């Protein structure tokens, strides 16, 4: 077995040929080099995993920590999902011992029941965004018109933030996640303004509680331990950062994938009951999910028959795992009826996306309403000319121009 992974050092992330296509190296890496030595943008090295089973093993094992502030951990700029808790205090809340009790507090707001209760309101939101888009006329940017605002509106609803402040939240969220689009000064200012806003919001919820996550967290006592106000702000910020850009991007990519091949859209028009499995398949098939999930090894481990020493930083490429032919039949084909579809787009194990039922419902709502209202929807540019987003930490498209 050729286990020497040092002879080829790839730069990570690997470049992809276009927004919807995977880097060609994945197939070979999964086949011959499942634990591959890569160099990150920071210059630090890490080991990249590409196989489904290995990544699932790593993500499910709490000994592989998400805390990359440890000595010797590679410097990543990965900020995807829950890793948005980037400063040390915020990180302490969502990794290590505090994580579980924090997660239990937050989790009850993301149960299937809670989310289904929001569904009607979500439909109203999407309908009003589609109304505006249609009123302005084609061609329109589906991402700017629906994909970008909708998940922020949902998060505002969840946090009990009034409708008139939605745009402010959207701006702060976009700025806080950006790497190159905004100056450091703008990023710091956005952070400060967001924290001030949340502090005031928390005070007002303390006086006038409502049916929202903030009011609930203010009152709930978990094993005698409340969240401090500081922690509450981190939680709100984490949810905004973890739940906005990810979902916006996925709406854009899902629609682009489904419209890129007319047969897919037609199949859904004929059988709208496929929306649920189609959303899952879009999540699996997304070749451009971003950096992947970094993990730090605090003990020696064995992965795919290789011994990997303590102190190694791993990068789990979720998109590569989701195309693993060992785990999915015809992994390279987009099959809107695929069931079951145990893809890893939301991670796995104790940190797996707490908002996944919400994200799924958002994606299903958007797809259902677009099918119903704009059956003639089509991309206004060829799929391989879809502009990619740069300067943000999550992979996505810059624009999805459509007509109908």
């Amino acid at each position: 077995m050729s286990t020497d992974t040092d002879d080829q050092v790839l730069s990570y992330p690997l470049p992809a040929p276009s927004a919807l296509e995977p880097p060609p190296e994945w197939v070979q890496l999964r086949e011959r080099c499942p634990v591959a030595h890569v160099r990150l943008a920071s210059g630090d090295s890490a080991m990249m995993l590409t196989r489904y089973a290995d990544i699932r093993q790593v993500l499910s094992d709490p000994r592989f920590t998400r805390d990359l502030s440890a000595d010797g951990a590679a410097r990543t700029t990965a900020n995807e999902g829950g890793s948005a808790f980037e400063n040390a205090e915020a990180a302490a809340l969502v990794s290590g011992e505090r994580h579980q009790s924090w997660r239990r507090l937050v989790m009850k707001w993301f149960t299937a029941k809670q989310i289904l209760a929001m569904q009607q309101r979500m439909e109203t939101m999407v309908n009003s965004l589609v109304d505006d888009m249609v009123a302005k006329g084609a061609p329109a940017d589906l991402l700017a018109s629906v994909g970008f605002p909708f998940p922020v509106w949902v998060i505002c609803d969840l946090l009990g933030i009034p409708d008139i402040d939605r745009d402010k939240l959207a701006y702060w969220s976009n700025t806080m996640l950006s790497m190159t689009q905004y100056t450091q000064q703008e990023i710091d200012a956005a952070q400060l303004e967001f924290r001030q806003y949340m502090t005031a919001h928390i005070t007002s919820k303390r006086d006038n509680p409502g049916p929202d996550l903030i009011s609930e967290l203010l009152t709930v006592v978990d094993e005698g331990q409340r969240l401090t106000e500081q922690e509450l702000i981190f939680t709100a910020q984490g949810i905004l950062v973890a739940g906005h850009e990810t979902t916006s991007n996925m709406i854009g990519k899902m629609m682009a994938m489904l419209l890129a091949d007319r047969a897919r859209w037609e199949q859904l028009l004929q059988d709208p009951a496929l929306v649920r499995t189609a959303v899952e398949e879009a999540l699996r098939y997304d070749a451009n999910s971003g950096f992947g999930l970094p993990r730090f090894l605090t003990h020696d481990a064995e992965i795919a028959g290789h011994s990997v020493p303590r102190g190694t930083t791993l990068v789990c490429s979720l998109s590569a795992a989701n195309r693993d032919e060992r785990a999915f039949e015809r992994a390279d084909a987009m099959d809107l009826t695929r069931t079951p579809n145990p893809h890893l787009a939301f991670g796995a194990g104790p940190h797996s996306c707490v908002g996944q039922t919400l994200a799924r419902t958002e994606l299903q709502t958007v797809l259902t309403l677009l099918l119903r209202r704009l059956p003639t929807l089509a991309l206004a540019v060829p799929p391989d000319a879809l502009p990619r987003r740069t300067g943000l930490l999550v992979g996505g498209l810059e624009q999805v121009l459509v007509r109908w």
Partner: protein
Amino acid sequence: MTPRPTSAPGQKASSPMRILVDLDKCCGAGSCVLAAPRVFDQRDDGIVLLLDESPPEDLHKAVREAAAVCPASAITLEERD
């Protein structure tokens, strides 16, 4: 270990199924409830609540899906051939 998608539904015509859930592993994502709402629910705190530990035949496919998609691998099935 890894829940590999099974591709042979209907194979186990009239075999009983028993569901085991590991409450300590459950991370409350609710995927099981979406896949098989007649068999799985969530308690108020988000942890899985098993409604029927040996569901009838017509629900087996949905239950297998729930087990496969559970991000915490907290659902195991005992199926006799």
